[in-house]
């Protein structure tokens, strides 16, 4: 009697590809794995200890050997021991884990930002250079990448196991996560938050490339218009410039250098201008009036798609001189020559929601 060939094939395949942890393809991955290893060891020790105690007592004090039990109340010393030691170990894990958590969700200031929109059931990535991707994401190695995520409908979750990062894409608000890939290759992208019928088809590839390959990819898949350029056209087609024209007597505040600055609202509360703030200020302006201005801006709720909002936000960010410099370093140098106007106009209209 031999093993059935099917099972045999299976076992061979498993032995060859056996892994208990996905590849470590980001800067943070080895750090997360170190904590995982530590916790696994502690767990194994704990489990072994319980197992040993139970087994040893079961053998030593089985009825055959020890017919008469000795009644014991308990022991405060022992209780204290197994309260304090686990607590101490758990607290070590807590501190270690929290440090990692802050690292994973606090992007460095020089990170290159890519927008990701989740919808039933696909991931759309918007690169600052204007490249669009569906269910895949191309990134270079050794460069911190920040993802700004939002969902168009239900909750989704953007998970890259090889990077040990994951972030929920939530309808109505931006969330962020960052990572720095280290090894070129193709890795899984999963939607891990259950999102309906084709949840398990909402998967894709993270393609990590060397800087050279990445440049080639960028040049080859450009739509011809960067996000900021697209935003600029939306900005003018929605006549935002009528008020936000940067003149001293303008009805709206100047948007130059507004990104990253601290504003005071009419309510007196200070705010930091980030992507989420800009998005909210476009959709719900009256709750975000800068001090000294009248609440005259109309809402754009329902008039601009999430992609359009992303373009506008990116355009406003680009009005910052130093941000423009930084993004130039990141991507613009990789863009081909300026495309002709006609193509650009068509692309600009993409952002406007269809009625």
């Amino acid at each position, binding site marked *: 009697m031999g093993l059935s060939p099917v099972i045999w094939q299976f076992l061979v395949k498993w032995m060859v590809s056996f892994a208990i942890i996905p590849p470590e393809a980001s800067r943070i991955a080895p750090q997360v794995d170190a904590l995982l290893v530590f916790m696994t060891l502690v767990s194994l020790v704990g489990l072994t200890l319980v197992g040993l*105690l139970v087994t040893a007592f079961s053998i030593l*004090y089985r009825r055959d050997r020890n017919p008469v039990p000795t009644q014991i109340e308990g022991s405060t010393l022992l209780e204290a021991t197994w309260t304090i030691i686990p607590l101490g170990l758990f607290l070590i894990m807590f501190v270690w884990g929290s440090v*990692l958590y802050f690292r994973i969700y606090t992007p460095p200031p020089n990170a290159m930002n890519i927008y990701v929109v989740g919808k039933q059931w696909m991931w759309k990535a918007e690169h600052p250079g204007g490249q669009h991707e569906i269910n895949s994401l191309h990134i270079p190695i050794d460069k911190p990448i920040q993802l700004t995520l939002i969902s168009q409908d239900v909750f989704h979750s953007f998970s890259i196991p090889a990077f040990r990062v994951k972030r929920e894409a939530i309808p109505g608000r931006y969330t962020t996560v960052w990572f720095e890939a280290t090894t070129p290759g193709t890795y899984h992208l999963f939607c891990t938050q259950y999102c309906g019928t084709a949840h398990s088809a909402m998967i894709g590839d993270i393609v990590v490339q060397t800087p050279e390959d990445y440049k080639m990819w960028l040049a080859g898949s450009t739509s011809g218009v960067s996000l900021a350029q697209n935003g600029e056209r939306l900005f003018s087609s929605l006549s935002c410039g009528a008020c936000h024209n940067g003149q001293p007597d303008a009805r709206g505040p100047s948007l130059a250098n507004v990104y990253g600055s601290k504003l005071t609202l009419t309510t007196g509360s200070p705010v930091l201008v980030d992507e989420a703030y800009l998005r909210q200020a476009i959709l719900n302006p009256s709750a975000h009036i800068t001090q000294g201005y009248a609440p005259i801006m109309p809402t754009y709720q329902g008039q601009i798609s999430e992609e359009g909002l992303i373009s506008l936000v990116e355009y406003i960010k680009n009005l910052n001189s130093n941000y423009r410099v930084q993004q130039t370093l990141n991507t613009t140098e990789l863009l081909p020559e300026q495309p002709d106007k006609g193509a650009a106009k068509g692309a600009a209209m993409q952002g406007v929601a269809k009625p």
Partner: protein
Amino acid sequence: MSTILNLPDQATARVPKRNYLTNENGIMSWLLTGDHKRIAILYLISITFFFFIGGALAGLIRLELLTPQSDLMASDTYNKIFTMHGVVMIFLFLVPSVPATLGNFLIPIMIGAKDLAFPKINLLSWYLYLAGGALTLGAMISGGVDTGWTFTTPMSTHFSNTNVITTGLAIFIAGFSSIFTGLNFIVTLHRMRAPGMTWFKMPLFCWAHYAASILMVLGTPVLAITIVLVALERTVGIGVFDPTKGGDPILFQHLFWFYSHPAVYIMILPGMGVISEVISTFSRKRVFGYTAVAFSSVAIAVFGFFVWAHHMFIMGVSNYAVLVFSLLTMLVAVPSAIKIFNWAFTLYKGSITFETPMLYAFGFMGLFTIGGLTGVFLGTAGTDIHLTETYFIVAHFHFVMVGGMLMAFLSGIHFWWPKLTGRMYPEKISQLAAVVTFIGFNFTFFPQFLLGMLGMPRRYAAYPQEFQVLNVFSTAGATILGVGYLLPMIYLVWSLKYGQIAGNNPWQATGLEWQIQSPPLTENFTTIPIVTQDVYDYEWLERQKEHEVTHVG
């Protein structure tokens, strides 16, 4: 191997003619009963029914996952099946499993009362449970529901066109069943204890149920109002959770997990109570550190209310909230560790035998330890990011719920079977079943930890090729586990007629329930006992026996 089993002479022994089962006859005497023991039996039958439905759905899930493609069923069907599996197993099996059956049967007897405080409400709670169950089945048959048991908004309010409202209503109703059970237990434990039965003479089973009842009474209403809001949002279109109207879907998460995290402790605490009784009885010893075990139950109940946001670490709650909730999660892990070590040390210098309930209890200790420790992986914010929403979390809560709670439930059912029915279950085959269950369980769920580490997301009808081998292991294990669950069904039913006569106290245990006849009288005690002995007082029990002997001699 020796045993503590002490049965009456089978040639002369009879199951007492007058007991709660034979007291009245006819179907109406069951359907209108106020007797907590009969209601417990009604519950036992109905939760077993729903366990089998949930188990069959689990079997379908495992079959589908045998291959990477979604070939057995379309992904829509798969989504409905895992949703129904979750709803049935959580709300119709795990939450009422031990409290509504063993708790209902034993709590009044353990504290020397004739019944629960509110017998009619107890019966009402069974009918509510049935109504909830029937509605769930109705929702399943008439097209199912595909939101997952977590009913995440805005999916459940705006994007799913399945039977969300019916299922929500079913959970709402079943929720009231659980509120009433909890309320009944708390009032009974406060007001119905026999003279001399002080709080610290109560068996730990009662303490565990007390803690679980607090969670039921305070947590479930929040779930109820959340369901009402979801239903209003779905039907009328109010905007409390709808981001397009200014509502916040995260608020739904907060409200939902405010119940659903404590619900985990509602499910596991009564199981811990069972384990305390079983380990004490089969090692002939007082539970080591009785007060520590009792207070750790209460501590779990209290801390359990303040950890809910650890289900939301990656959902964009503020980093500082994550710190607080991660820290509190670490704190709630400690009382569980205290319990495990106290149980282990109860064995120390005991006189241990290995009957079926004890085997299940050992299984519980091992599996619950793994389940608890992997919970710490998930409570640690940094590693939660990688592990959450993957099969790691599926494996974790199955280790706690199935490995922990179901093992405890089976342990308790075997332990008190002679009290429930007056007859013994067959020992050898049930020991085999316990071992088969343990092996099958590990085969099924351990590979899922590895799958989760590798990043396989939960709730996937189709998955990448490379995860197949571990999934095949898991499915193979599930068939073994299935056998492990079918065996007790068969031999327990068999034992109703052919089991050995158990007598009052086959295990020589100390609880008040073992000092009365099996099966008990409808009124439990002919005269209310006056409790003088300590809890788990085996010396008192020995003296009682000597006393009897001298009396007869």
